[in-house]
């Protein structure tokens, strides 16, 4: 006998109490129970990033998290980006740079980009590409997406300076060490 679970969580700033089956992913809960269909279902294996949402400040694949695990968490979905009719800077820059064609990957890219800029308001292009590596796009070739995020960062999206993470990549350190050895 499987019991439904009551989950108290916060979604896009609003407290939400919901009832779900334990087997439902956070993505299913968002889309099927709460009608928040901005987050997309892609691969269901954590490869494509179309379902990316922000949970307690971190980008996660909502297909790889149970709805039950959302209890007590703060979740931001793409629906939480715009302020009424005013687009979030990232959304505006995606439009200006034509960073989308079919659009199914876009909510995931926006959320990964937001998570990055919230932690690191002035990322290098390399850091942007690394942070977006978990999102696949089959239309744009990525360059326009990266340009939009660079532009959004220049316009000061990363207003919240707290929780800035160290950005030096270990891959870079390793590469540097190997370069030094060659010399």
């Amino acid at each position, binding site marked *: 006998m*499987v*019991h439904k*679970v009551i989950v108290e969580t916060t979604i896009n700033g609003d407290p939400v109490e919901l009832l779900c*089956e*334990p*087997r439902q*992913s956070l993505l299913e809960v968002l889309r099927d129970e709460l009608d928040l269909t901005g987050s997309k279902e892609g691969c*269901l*294996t*954590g*490869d494509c*990033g179309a379902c*990316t949402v922000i*949970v307690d400040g*971190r*980008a*996660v*694949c909502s*297909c*790889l*998290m*149970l709805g*039950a*695990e959302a*209890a007590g968490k703060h979740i931001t979905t793409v629906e939480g980006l715009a302020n009424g009719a005013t687009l979030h800077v990232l959304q505006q820059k995606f439009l200006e740079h034509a960073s989308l064609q079919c659009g199914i990957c876009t909510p995931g890219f926006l959320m*990964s980009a937001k*998570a990055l800029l919230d932690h690191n308001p002035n990322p290098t292009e390399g850091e942007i590409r*690394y*942070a977006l*590596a*978990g*999102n696949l796009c089959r239309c744009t070739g990525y360059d326009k997406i990266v340009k939009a995020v660079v532009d959004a960062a220049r316009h000061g999206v990363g207003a919240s300076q707290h929780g800035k*993470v*160290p950005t030096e*990549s*270990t*891959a870079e*350190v*390793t590469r540097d*060490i*190997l370069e*030094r*050895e060659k010399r």
Partner: protein
Amino acid sequence: MHAINYESPKTIDEAVKLLAAHGEKARPLSGGTDLLIQLRAGTRRPDFVVDIKHIADLCKISFSAQHGLSLGAAVPCLEIHENPHLRRHYPGLTEAAHLIGSLQIQSRATVGGNLCNGSPAADTTPALIALGAMARIAGPGGERTVPVEGFCLSPGRTVLKPGELLVEFQIPAPAKYSSDAYLRFIPRNEMDIAVVGVGVALTLDPANDHVVAARIALGAVGPTPIFATQAVQALVGKKLDDAAIANAGTLAIAAATPIDDMRGTAEYRRHVVGVLTRRALAIAATRAKASA
């Protein structure tokens, strides 16, 4: 996905009771980045999923230069990578944690889950073995501690018995003039499963660069991660020159038992074991010298 029950115990005792009560029908849930895929695919079919992330001890990193590192089994990889102490003292472990999947995956995936999933290609396992990590396990009969190199039995199988829970890793304090490194080969830049992974840890004698202690572990070249003991024995007491590094690479190749699969042939994997072992030793040595 089949119907499951979800439990989120607050203490190790509660978790062990739940796991023991449901035996093979229960599975701990850590980051879930492997488990949810397995549930969907039907390759694991537990009736009870026991979320261990509400147990405070399992979510804790405690480090001291004297006592070393206690790493909770449910700490996500990104938190490990972001921890300045761990990046400084265990750079091989933090780079392995930072190689797993995308940032979305690293936000959830845990080192404990990586080990318990039992994949021979797990990136953090060779890094843990290199550091001499011990796995602390709680169970219905009390606690036990198992060296990480003895934890995996075969692909997907570990020493954990029904009712047992991996609680934390105990990693020795970094010795003076020591460091570690983890290198993985994949055919693209990011986000793939290891063709070969090599973790090494080294302690040098600052007076003459002789190897005081060393550990080398290999991933994805056998049914379980491999602790390359002969390669280690050949290094200890020797000066870490090119010849010693080359010899360790050759002995690491001898310890590998790879198969041909879609990611690479056995012959290719053996070759890459040698290359990565030599490079990882050189990086760990450079770091060890810089740490003094």
